[in-house]
């Protein structure tokens, strides 16, 4: 009987998410980025996949449900899992308007297995897109350039 109870308890525990942590409150400053292009190098090195040069591609990826990150001035990436009251941040529209923007964001920070996550609660400041790297890189990828 006792063994059965133990087994049942273990089975239930295995089926549930790990004990939910409360997260640490943080304020971060960084650029909203397309995390796939940044991590993978599929479009080139990190300097080419941020800022104005990569803005259209960042829109495409965010619209396509690819996780959005915030790249801080210290070089840390926070994957965005919540945006104010929106928990469906992969809906292809919630985080579009701030792609490539430098933000100051308040929220809850979680770390798991080497990846940092943030549940953004408030945007303290939106500094637009300070990184004007299109002068160096043009459009990344080149087919983001509009047809004339």
């Amino acid at each position: 009987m006792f063994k059965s109870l133990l087994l049942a308890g273990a089975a239930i525990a295995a089926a549930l998410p790990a004990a939910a942590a409360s997260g640490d409150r943080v304020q971060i400053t960084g650029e909203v980025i397309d995390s796939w292009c940044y991590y993978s190098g599929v479009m080139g090195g990190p300097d080419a996949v941020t800022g104005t040069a990569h803005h259209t591609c960042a829109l495409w990826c965010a619209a396509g449900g690819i996780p959005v990150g915030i790249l801080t001035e210290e070089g840390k990436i926070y994957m965005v899992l919540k945006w104010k009251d929106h928990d469906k941040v992969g809906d292809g529209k919630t985080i579009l308007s701030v792609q490539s923007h430098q933000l100051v964001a308040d929220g809850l920070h979680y770390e798991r297995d080497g990846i940092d996550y943030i549940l953004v609660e408030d945007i303290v400041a939106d500094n637009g897109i300070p990184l004007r790297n299109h002068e160096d890189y043009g459009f990344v990828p080149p087919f983001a350039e509009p047809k004339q």
Partner: protein
Amino acid sequence: MKKLAMLLMMSAIASPALSEDGEGPYSANSQAKSWSLFGEEKARFEARVTDALCELTGDCPDDCGGGERPMVVMRKDDNKMLIVNKGGAPNFTGANYRLSEYCGQDVEVDGLLVGDPDLTPGIGAKVYQVQLIRATGSDEWVKTNLYTKQWAKKYPEAKGKGPWFKRDPNVKAEIAKTGYFGIGLEADKKWLEENAE
């Protein structure tokens, strides 16, 4: 200038750091296709599918957000949580819709672990590109290419020629407001005039 950008891209893609063998501890029997990405390792393993917000906070809808939350796979071997950053289709799409079909289920996945801190400082762990998935016990692999079908259902008015991302109404609305560089329509115009061929 455009040529410079292309050269930089190509040199990055061909950098020696990428000439690893692409093998890792989970590469055995992988059928994943190489994309020649930073730190790429083929990786096939058993996992449980859930969404990241659920796993971290306990906020767990039955459908894992129905394809609109970032998804993770919990590797059976070591209970490591791997964020799924990309599906298998080369069209700017994630794998959230396909993975949400397996919400809470045990599966086998095949794809690429991606990322290299030497090339991209600041990253703390590799992320996962899932190319194939199947429920545990199933013989049939399923491609992670569901996004465009779901998108077409969501935006029937956007039907037309060309790739989905150039017809997406939300993307088009943003570009109409702030331009392709995101800093105003004048900046686009100026650059295009200066770089006309």
